[in-house]
């Protein structure tokens, strides 16, 4: 993955490499953006990573950076970026991949997007996702699924499948995603790229269309760990518009080249083996061996209540979602079902039935059920207590390990349509990622290798606000694992 001796395939450049070339005036922002737009032109009909392109604006912005290159240029100037369509962008239609918001033109911009734009990124467009971020395959998009750049017959994972596929297909140098139960990490794993879910509260949620407010976090999907660190550096910070955001205690540092000597890594025993494909385990175990060889102190760790994490999540997240999605009522914006309505209740019911897809309706009903009179204590109350146990489990595990490690997803990318018939099977795609969201911890997925020609992700989990430690270890692991494959779509451009 190097551009030494010339620019080579621009689509293989990491964001940091591209910034270096631009800084040395060996590459222009326009050329970089142009290369990504060309790749989109060529392949996005097949991949469908994007719901909407802002190509013209992107070219104009890149040209403006070029004119003002050199001293005083913003730190991320000219980096062609994909934005998940769950983040509102003023003046650029934001749909959350839902019919409900098909023509919604936001009147403000999400803080995370604003911060990256202020740092100089160029927005290429808005990426596909599972409707309102509910799903693990991007097949729940109202506008059709995204396909995995490694195998167009397979899903890219989800819900940030468009963002992960865009990065894997060379259709963006990096991307913004959001993660409620694994929505950054799982598609990153299935697409062979890096995905970081920051500690809850470290990145503003203002302008992130809420799925489950106490779980949602915005984060980077990138080609390398160092790129993830770079983007994170510009994402973190307390936002006056988000009461649950905090100032990150550390300045986010770019990881250095070093080994893993002395880093204590705990493999979560309850989650390896059972329910995880053998070929995924095999790639995972090889990666662990390499990390051990690089000095990591690997041991087993226990999260005794982790089997309750998935059921607790599927109470709490849909409950929050049922309220978060109540605002889509056809009054102030978004879809309103056509025709005359006998009264406002009928208008609500028709609008919401036409505007939401099946999975969204399912979760709204599930959440409504869990909160409804007579069930609250047994479901919502009990799940909040399970959440406490999961938090405590992690705290105990971190007494003996600096980081925990797991496969990111139990399988590699599955075939389109393979799991759409049974919601519960789909939910189990997130079995290794959901516990992290319950505890609000930072976690990163990095490529661990290929199984059957498809990427496998390795997930590292750290204590709250341990991003620097997590990123450093992930960068070291990335080096020793030495994953150097790119999707066939990027390879074609060599």
């Amino acid at each position: 993955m190097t551009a030494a001796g010339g620019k080579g395939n621009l689509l293989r450049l990491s964001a940091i490499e591209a910034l270096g070339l631009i800084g040395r005036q060996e590459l222009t922002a326009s050329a970089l953006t142009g290369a990504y737009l060309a790749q989109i032109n060529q392949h996005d009909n097949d991949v469908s990573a994007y719901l909407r392109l802002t190509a013209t604006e992107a070219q104009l912005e890149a040209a403006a950076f070029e004119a003002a290159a050199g001293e005083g240029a913003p730190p991320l100037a000219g980096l062609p970026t994909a934005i998940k369509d769950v983040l509102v962008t003023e003046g650029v239609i934001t749909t959350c991949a839902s019919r409900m918001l098909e023509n919604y033109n936001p009147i403000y911009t999400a803080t995370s997007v604003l911060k990256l734009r202020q740092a100089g990124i160029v927005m290429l467009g808005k990426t596909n996702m599972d409707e309102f971020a509910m799903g693990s395959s991007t097949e729940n998009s109202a506008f059709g699924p995204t396909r995995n750049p490694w195998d167009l017959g397979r899903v890219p994972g989800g819900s940030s499948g468009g963002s992960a596929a865009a990065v894997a297909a060379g259709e963006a140098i990096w991307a913004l995603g959001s993660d409620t139960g694994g929505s950054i990490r799982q598609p990153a794993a299935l697409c062979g790229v890096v995905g970081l879910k920051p500690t809850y509260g470290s990145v503003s949620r203002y302008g992130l269309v809420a799925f489950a407010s106490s779980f949602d976090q915005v984060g980077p999907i990138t080609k390398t760990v160092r790129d993830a660190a770079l983007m994170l550096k510009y994402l973190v910070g307390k936002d006056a518009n988000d009461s649950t955001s905090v100032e990150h205690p550390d300045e986010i540092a770019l990881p250095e080249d070093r080994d893993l000597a002395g880093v204590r890594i705990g493999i979560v025993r309850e989650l390896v083996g059972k329910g995880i494909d053998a070929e995924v385990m095999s790639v995972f175990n090889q990666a662990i061996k390499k990390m051990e060889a690089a000095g990591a102190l690997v041991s087993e760790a226990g999260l005794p209540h982790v089997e309750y994490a998935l059921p607790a999540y599927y109470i709490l997240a849909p409950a929050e979602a049922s309220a978060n999605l109540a605002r889509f009522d056809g009054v102030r914006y978004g879809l309103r079902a056509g025709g005359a309505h006998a009264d406002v209740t009928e208008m609500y019911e028709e609008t919401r039935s036409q505007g939401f897809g099946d999975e969204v309706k399912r979760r709204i009903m599930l959440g409504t059920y869990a909160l409804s009179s007579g069930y609250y204590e047994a479901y919502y109350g009990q799940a909040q207590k399970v959440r406490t146990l999961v938090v405590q489990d992690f705290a105990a595990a971190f007494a003996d390990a600096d980081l925990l490690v797991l496969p990111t997803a139990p399988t590699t990318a599955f075939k389109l349509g393979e799991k759409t018939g049974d919601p519960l099977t789909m939910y189990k795609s997130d079995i290794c990622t959901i516990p992290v969201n319950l505890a609000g911890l930072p976690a990163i997925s990095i490529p661990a290798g290929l199984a059957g020609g498809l990427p496998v992700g390795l997930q590292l989990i750290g204590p709250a606000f341990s991003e620097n430690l997590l990123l450093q270890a992930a960068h070291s692991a990335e080096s020793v694992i030495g994953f150097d494959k790119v999707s066939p779509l990027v390879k074609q451009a060599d």
Partner: protein
Amino acid sequence: MEFEPVIGLEIHVELSTESKMFCGCRAEFGGEPNTRCCPVCMAHPGALPVANKKAIEYLARISLALNCNIPGRSIFHRKNYFYPDLPKGYQISQYDQPFAVNGQLGIIFDDEHISVGIERVHMEEDTAKNIHAGKSGRIAGALYSLIDFNRSGTPLVEIVTRPEIHSPQAARIFLNKLKNLLKYLDVSDCNMEEGSLRCDANVSVRPAGSGTLGVKTELKNMNSFKHLEKGLAKEIERQVAVLEFGGQVVQQTVHFDFASGEVTPMRSKEFAHDYRYFPEPDLVPLAASSSFVQKITADMPELPDERAKRYMADFNLPAYNAEVLTSSRELSDYFEATLAYFNDSRIVSNWLMGELLGYLNASGTELAGCLVTPAGLGGLLKMISSGEVSNAVGKEIFMEMCKTGGAAENIVAARGLTQISDAAELAAIAERVIAANPAQAEQFRAGKDKVLGFFVGQIMKETGGRANPQVTSRVLRDKLAG
């Protein structure tokens, strides 16, 4: 059978903060529709609430003034229901961990001191406004509605009393006392017509002396003190009639129609409320530390009871006067403002309680709408005390000021009402009057001192009441003796 009404009140108070509860839009009444809103109060996707600090301080002020206990931690909940004026599909409110609990507010009713328990005080946000288009402007019969989000998200404090009020009159007195207290706290306009103070009531009746509660109804839409009292009386009457005819009161909402003065039970909903309360994940807990409570206590404005005590101590006013003067914040402020122009608290107090309140009662005017300012009244009192006008003429001038809003000096000048204190001028009149009434003059000289009053009256008649009474007496004595 004798029935005893049992009433609990639920009062909503819109706080007079500069901005809304969870966003920076200006919080004020009226305005062109949808001109004071933003992504947060219109619930655009991705928007998040951030609590207004001043609103929480006001909430604490109210809670302390109502003698509540403020637990160290309270949280916001989401109350879920669909309605066009509720943009998020839930209202941010408080549920099982309210900001303050267990308070009380005392009232005097039928010369008896009654303590009404306050169950809870909590913070929430107001809804938008539905404008019902159609014949009546009311919800029933409207063909469609228009929604204006200017009010959406205005800070709202809910105060819930225990069911410890036993008559419509007592309910009215309680609400009036609460309103007065809120005015002193400077936290709300408390304008019932504009909806910044709203009151619903839970009403039940039970056989007198019974210890158990009857089935209650929720009485809504009482937008004035008069309507509250009338609506409660009507609803109690209705419930008693139902029970006397062997029927049963049904738990339901009852609407008071102030146009007809009737109460109508609302069509019971086919669908019971199921608000699915759960903790609001977008907001963090409120932790009222003891230092926070101390600070609010220290910054607390002077409350009516304290003010009354101060009037008794500093101005030497009788308890009754002090209580009347502090019975409303406006009157009390008016009193103190007048003292700045005329520094005799006894005289000012007597004028306010006699002339001013008398005029307001007789004319049905609110103090806020009274044309006489504290400066105007002070000016008048100065003229009386300096002898420029007599006390009697002063009262006439005051009535004129109430009607026209003119200044005392101008009225005196225009009507020539200046008091005659010039002894020479009065002596000339006295001579005329004595000459015209020789018999009475004889009587006086014979020792009948009372006759002096007759002569004073005659002189007053001649001068249109402008003669200075003291000078007149002196001059008369001189002349009669002579």
